[in-house]
Structure formats: structure tokens, C-alpha cells
């Protein structure tokens, strides 16, 4: 073992050109489980995309492309979708992939124990047509269904049955928590939760490898500064994320590269739309000024987003005008202008609303959830102070943050939203629709923003097949949200990865790291 490492270290030192190589990377969080249906979280799904595959997958540009299905088409008049499966695919243990595995994976992923079941809310049934054809029937016409299942991963039904892992285990352990049997380009060879996870290329993969990795080791490194140190000292080949402030310097260092992109996540300020009173500071108990649209507009004009981007984000982020970034489907091109930074106008609006003398309130903010979240909130506090409204900032770890928001303990808050479907409908459904527990609507709409028209537009955009009409619905909703200043979108969070100088890879906007696009030079 020792000799082996020494040899490979030597090999790397000599830097053999384009030779197959070992690759080590680090991320902030360890995937909680190796079960693709147990936890619906980005670290798990992102990692398992290297081990498991879905019927469809996303390419380097996020476009949907064939994976275990070679083609798909709508059935009838929006009754569902028919998928034609790829033949000759084998799982890592050698067993063959068939429609049965798809049916099994549907049952598994949509079961009550699964965390991914909400993906299948529109699905009424999945039927096997033949060994390599599957029909997915939907409750209503669903134009974006294939887009929404890129992370639905197919597991070997026989393997799961043999190891007693027919259902995902959320709060207990089962075989699939630590072991995998997928079809993707890499197979899991070692899993030590929280310590390291080792992948090796799967020789029997149906696709053509674009990588030259012989062994890949993932280590969770929680502290970003430690991760940067590890990359700079050559202990790892790639880290995600790179703290924004280190990007410039790392790029200049010579032994490391920085890869930047725009993530799907939009950072915004949220307001209490229904609360009658302020809850914090000396003004607690006074009427809630944020109910007045002019106050919300004043906030939008008071925040100097370019300055935040220039300093805190180091020029690495783009301003946001709506709840999704331009890279998302359904982005409203016509509404891409965000409110100007104009403190005078903000003051005028406040005066008009009757708050010429300002007021004070409590701003809630996470301090470990988004890039430099706390610093952004501090900057916002300063900017608001300059137009006369005093925010008292309370920044906290994310595990305390969500409960606070859920209990309406805020006068204003910071939120980041990344649409899981890469579609503008997603944030409207979760953030802008009147909360409705039964219909699973507006579940992250903490401020209870409510607009009848938006509520009516949502089902329309969900079932409209025609792209132009659908865009019109989305534009209309977006316009309402902008006019009402339901939220103040600030910027689109940047995506910054760091790699060794000898690494080539592709960064996907959903922040998933795809191992099969890595070349070690």
C-alpha cells in the first residue's frame, strides 16, 4: 500500500503527459448517503450522478440529453411521456438494465420513505410497455416532465432485492446507504462516511469515456480556508467552492486555476407581507412598514448591488432582476432591468409612505448558507442606514435560520433560491404562490406574499405545452412580482471552483461535479 502510493506520487511528480491518473477532490459537505432516493440534496445527487444514471441527463450546457433512455415523446394529448430505453447497458455488478429496473426505481423513488417522492407528484402511473419501453402517465399535461427527472436515478432491482434495500432508509442504515449498483461511468470502491469516498472507472460503461482518471478520491473539507490550503499545497486536485475572495489570488498563484460560472441561485431579500407589526428593535409593535409597496421599493433602490458585487463578490456575480437567473428556462428577457441604486429616490419613497424619519427593524440572515451571506447582510444594513432605516442584523447558522423564518421571527430576511427544475416556474410555485399546505404550494413563501393573479397563472404555466404562451404567463407573473416588490432580487450567486494547474474539467451551472469530464495532464 505504502509502496503503491509512493510510486503514484513519483509518477505525478514527473508529470507524465496525459497519462491516466489519480484524482482527488474536496467539497464542503460529504454526501449523507449513497442512496439516490433517500435524500434530496445537492451534495448527494451531485455526487451520485457519477455512479448512477437517470433516463435522461444534463449535458455540459445543462441541456437534457439521452442517458438510459435513448429517446422520449409525449403520449397522446399530454397524457404522459414514452421513454425508449438504451439496450445493452449493464450495472456495475454485471446484471443487465431493463424496464423492470425503471419501474422498480419509480416505485422506490416515489415511495413514502423516499425523499424524492415530490418529483413524482404529477405522475399517476409508470407502465412497462416492453423490456425497453416505459410509459410515464401524468395527471395533467406536463411539458417539462423529462426536464424534471434528470436526477431520478435508476437502481438495479435485483441487487436491491438481494440486499434488502427495496426501500430507501431515511433514518436507519441499509445496504444501499453505503453501497451502490448503478450504471454510470464510475463505480464506488470504498466508502467511509465523512472521511473519504473512492471511485474507479467502470469498464463496462455504455458511453465513451472522456476522462483519464484511474482512481478518484473525494474528501469532505468543511473549512473553505483549509480547502484552499489543500489545493495550493497540492494535497487535492480540485475544490468546490473556492471562497470568492481567494479566487483572484489563486488564479495568479500559478499552481492552481479558478473556474468560474454563474450558478442558478438567486439571492434576494424577503419581507413579511401579512404581519401587522414589526417584531424587533425599539420599533417592535409598531405597524409593519413593509406592507407598503413604497417601502419595499425604497429598499430596492437603497441597496447598491453594483457595490456589493464589486467588493464582496469581487466582480464574480451578476445582478438579478427576477427570481431566476438568465440561464434558466422561462427567464423573462423583457424584464431584465433591476431597480437602480438611487438613495434619493429611496428617501423620497419612504417620505411618501410616511417614514421620512425612518424606522428600525430586525434583519435575519444566515451566516453559513450562501457565499459571504453575512457580509452581504452587513453591507445591506449599512446601505439601508444611509436612507434612514436602521436594520438590526442577526446572523445565524442555517440550522437555526430556517426554524426562525418558519416561525415568522423576522422583519426582513435574506434568501437564496435555486430552481431544482431549472425553470422559472419553480420559484413562483415555492416562493410567490399563496401558501397552501394541501396543494404543496408556496411552502417557502415565508412572508405569505399573496396575489390572486399569480396564483391563477401558476397552473397555466405548469400545463401549457406551447413555449410562447407559457413564456407569456411567466412574464406576466414576473412583472407582478417586480411591481409589487414581492422580493428584492440582488444577484445571481457565482460558482467558483479551483483546480490544480494540470486539471481540465467542465463546470456545470447546477454545481454538480461530473467526474467523467475530468482530464489530468
Amino acid at each position, binding site marked *: 500500500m505504502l509502496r503503491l502510493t509512493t510510486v503514484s506520487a513519483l509518477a505525478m511528480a514527473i508529470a507524465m503527459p496525459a497519462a491516466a491518473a489519480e484524482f482527488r477532490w474536496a467539497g464542503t459537505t460529504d454526501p449523507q448517503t449513497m442512496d439516490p432516493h433517500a435524500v434530496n440534496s445537492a451534495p448527494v445527487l451531485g455526487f451520485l450522478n457519477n455512479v448512477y444514471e437517470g433516463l435522461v441527463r444534463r449535458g455540459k450546457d445543462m441541456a437534457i440529453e439521452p442517458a438510459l433512455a435513448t429517446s422520449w415523446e409525449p403520449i397522446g394529448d399530454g397524457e404522459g411521456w414514452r421513454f425508449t430505453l438504451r439496450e445493452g447497458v449493464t450495472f456495475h455488478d454485471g446484471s443487465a438494465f431493463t424496464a423492470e429496473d425503471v419501474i422498480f426505481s419509480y416505485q422506490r423513488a416515489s415511495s413514502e420513505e423516499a425523499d*424524492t417522492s415530490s418529483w413524482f407528484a404529477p405522475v399517476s402511473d409508470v407502465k412497462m410497455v416492453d423490456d425497453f419501453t416505459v410509459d410515464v402517465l401524468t395527471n395533467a399535461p406536463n411539458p417539462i416532465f423529462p426536464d424534471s427527472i434528470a436526477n431520478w436515478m435508476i437502481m438495479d432491482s435485483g441487487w436491491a432485492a438481494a440486499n434488502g434495500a427495496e426501500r430507501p*432508509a431515511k433514518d436507519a442504515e441499509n445496504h444501499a446507504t453505503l453501497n451502490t449498483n448503478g450504471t454510470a461511468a464510475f463505480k464506488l470502491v470504498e466508502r467511509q462516511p465523512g472521511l473519504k469516498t473512492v471511485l474507479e472507472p467502470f469498464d463496462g460503461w455504455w458511453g465513451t469515456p472522456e476522462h483519464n482518471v484511474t482512481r478518484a478520491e473525494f474528501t469532505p473539507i468543511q473549512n473553505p480556508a483549509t480547502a484552499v490550503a*489543500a489545493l495550493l499545497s497540492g494535497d487535492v486536485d480540485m475544490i468546490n467552492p473556492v471562497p470568492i475572495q481567494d479566487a483572484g489570488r489563486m488564479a495568479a498563484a500559478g499552481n492552481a486555476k479558478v473556474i468560474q460560472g454563474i450558478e442558478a441561485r438567486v439571492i434576494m431579500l424577503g419581507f413579511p407581507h401579512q404581519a401587522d407589526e414589526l417584531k424587533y428593535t425599539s420599533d417592535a409593535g409598531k405597524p409593519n412598514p413593509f406592507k407598503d409597496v413604497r417601502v419595499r421599493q425604497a429598499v430596492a433602490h437603497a441597496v447598491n448591488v453594483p457595490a456589493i458585487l464589486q467588493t464582496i463578490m469581487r466582480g464574480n456575480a451578476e445582478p438579478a432582476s427576477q427570481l431566476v437567473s438568465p440561464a434558466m428556462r422561462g427567464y423573462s428577457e423583457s424584464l431584465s432591468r433591476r431597480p437602480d441604486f438611487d438613495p434619493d429616490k429611496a428617501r423620497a419613497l419612504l417620505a411618501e409612505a410616511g417614514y421620512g424619519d425612518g424606522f428600525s427593524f430586525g434583519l435575519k440572515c444566515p451566516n453559513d448558507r450562501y457565499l459571504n451571506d453575512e457580509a452581504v447582510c452587513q453591507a445591506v444594513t449599512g446601505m439601508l442606514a444611509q436612507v434612514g432605516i436602521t436594520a438590526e442584523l442577526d446572523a445565524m447558522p442555517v*440550522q437555526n435560520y430556517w426554524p426562525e423564518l418558519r416561525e415568522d421571527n423576522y422583519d426582513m430576511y435574506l434568501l437564496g433560491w435555486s430552481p431544482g427544475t431549472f425553470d422559472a416556474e419553480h420559484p413562483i410555485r415555492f416562493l410567490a404562490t399563496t401558501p397552501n399546505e394541501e396543494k404543496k404550494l408556496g411552502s417557502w413563501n415565508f412572508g405569505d406574499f399573496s396575489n390572486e393573479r399569480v396564483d391563477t397563472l401558476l397552473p397555466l404555466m405548469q400545463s401549457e405545452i406551447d413555449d410562447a404562451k407559457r413564456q407569456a404567463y411567466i412574464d406576466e407573473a414576473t412583472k407582478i412580482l417586480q411591481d409589487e416588490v414581492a422580493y428584492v432580487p440582488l444577484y445571481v450567486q457565482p460558482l467558483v471552483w479551483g483546480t490544480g494547474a494540470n486539471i481540465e474539467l467542465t463546470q456545470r451551472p447546477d454545481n454538480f461535479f461530473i467526474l467523467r469530464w475530468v482530464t489530468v495532464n
Partner: protein
Amino acid sequence: MIAYVIRRVFQSFVVLLVVGLVAFSMFRFVGDPIDNMLGQERTQADVERLRTTLGLDQPFPVQYAKFLANAAQGNFGVSYRQGRPVATIISERAPATLELALVSGTLALVVGIGLGVFTAIRRNGVASNVIMTTSLIGVSLPTFLIGILLIYVFSVSLGWLPSFGRGETTQIGGWSTGFLTASGLKALILPSITLGLYQMTLIMRLVRSEMLEVLRQDYIRFARARGLRERSVNFRHALKNTMVPVITVVGLQLGAIIAFAIITETVFQWPGVGLLFINAIQFVDIPVMAAYLMLISVMFVGINLIVDLLYFAIDPRLRIDGRHA
């Protein structure tokens, strides 16, 4: 003496229960695990269901009682985050922390006692004064800064030592050791210095002041007056007497190493129980937190007990009293 030990064990047991209760009552302030366990698209019904499944809807004394009942059977529950038995997880992580604590503890003990004795004997020497003053820098620097500094100098700037992790480990039975590989040993250097430095200075200063105290004693003068060699006076007579008071503090300090490992393990991403605990806090992984705190208290109480017993071994005066106690 046996009666004494039994009494101490019983007291320790009570201490454990109290510590456990305090720790457990704290958990609900750490945050809510539910959000971390459910995805973005979870519903309120999901939340309620999971809350009931985990027993989080019950008052915390009930939760604590259940936890204790299970813990007594060696069952610490299942980690919310990893979905695996906590006992398994901790036993996987413990070797890393114990090896780190062992190395830094040995470092702190050997160097600390050595320098303490040196500075006490050469009380007014230039070297002693320099050591004493520099040692204060060690006490004045927070551990996290030392770690960051060491990484910056030895990993990033010089590239001599790894910046994180344990390097290559070897599995021996259920124990993963970093002692058997070059990279494992190299990886131990910076974290153990970071962890041991503070305790080292503490031990050194304590040994010095105790030894100075002892050197003032009549029996040391008498030993000198009998023409014994300085070496014998310092090490045979003075050091042994110095150790009596030093042992308590040193024992507690060695225990503290395991607790302080939290910070070092975070800075160096050392995959031990401390890092596990910090991650557990962030994820509100209550079973892991509870098990960790219980483990730490068991260890502290154990160390306390050992320290007490060591007294008997070292100080013959206590053996007499102990028999009657």
C-alpha cells in the same frame, strides 16, 4: 481503598447523569434537524411525520430518559445525517482522535515536563527566561490561530507537510492507524503540535512553579547537605515530589486535549470525533451529539478516577489514609 474506589465510581456515575441531562437539554437550542433531513420540496406533513418518528415531539426529559435507557444497552441510536448507528460511526472516528491526542499528549507531557524541570533548575538562566517568555506567547495565541499559521507556513508556503487529513491509514482490526505510513506520520505533525502546544506550555509552567516550590523544601536542602549529586537531587527527590500536585492538572489537561481537539480537527479537517461533533452540531444530529458528550464525560470522569488512583501509587502518605477511608 476498594470502598474509596467504589464511592468514586458512584459519584462519577452521578456526574455523568447530570452532565448528560445538561447536555441533552441543550440540544433543542442547537437548531432543528428536520430541515436538514428533508429536501427543499418537503411539506409540513412530512415535517410532522418525521418529528414524530424521531420522537422530537416529546418533552426533552422523556427524550433523555429514552436515550439513557438505550445508551445503557450500548445503543446510541442512529445518526440523522448518515443513517448509520452512532456507535459504529464513533468507533470509526475514535482512532483518529485518540492517535492525535496520544501524540500531542505525549508531546505536551515530555516537552512540558522537560522544559518545566529545565527552567526550574536553571531558574535564572538566560535560556530559561527566553523559554518562559516564549511559552507565554504560546498561551496567548488562540489554538485556531496557531493552526492557521502552521498551515500557512508549512503547507502552503513551504509545501513540506500536508494541510489536512490523516494521510494514508492502515486498518488493523477495527482500528485505523496513521502510525504505519510515512504520509500518516507526516500528517500527524502539524495537528499534534497545534493541539499540544497550549497544554505543553501549561504543563511546563505548572511543573516549573511546583518544582521551584519543592526545591525550596527542607528535604531538598537536606539532600544537598548529604552531598547527593545534583541529578539525584533534581530528579530523584525534587521531580517525584513535583509530580504529586502536577498529576491532577496534567490529567485534566490530557482530558482537555480530547475536547480541544474539536478546534484542531476543524482547522485541519482531521477526521476524528471532534470534527464529527462539529458536523453534528451543524446538522443538528442529536444522537451523535449526545453520544459524543456522553463519551467525553465518561472519559473525563475516567481520567479523574485514574488521577485519584495515581495519587495512591505515588504518595505513600495517602495509602495509609486511603485504607481508613
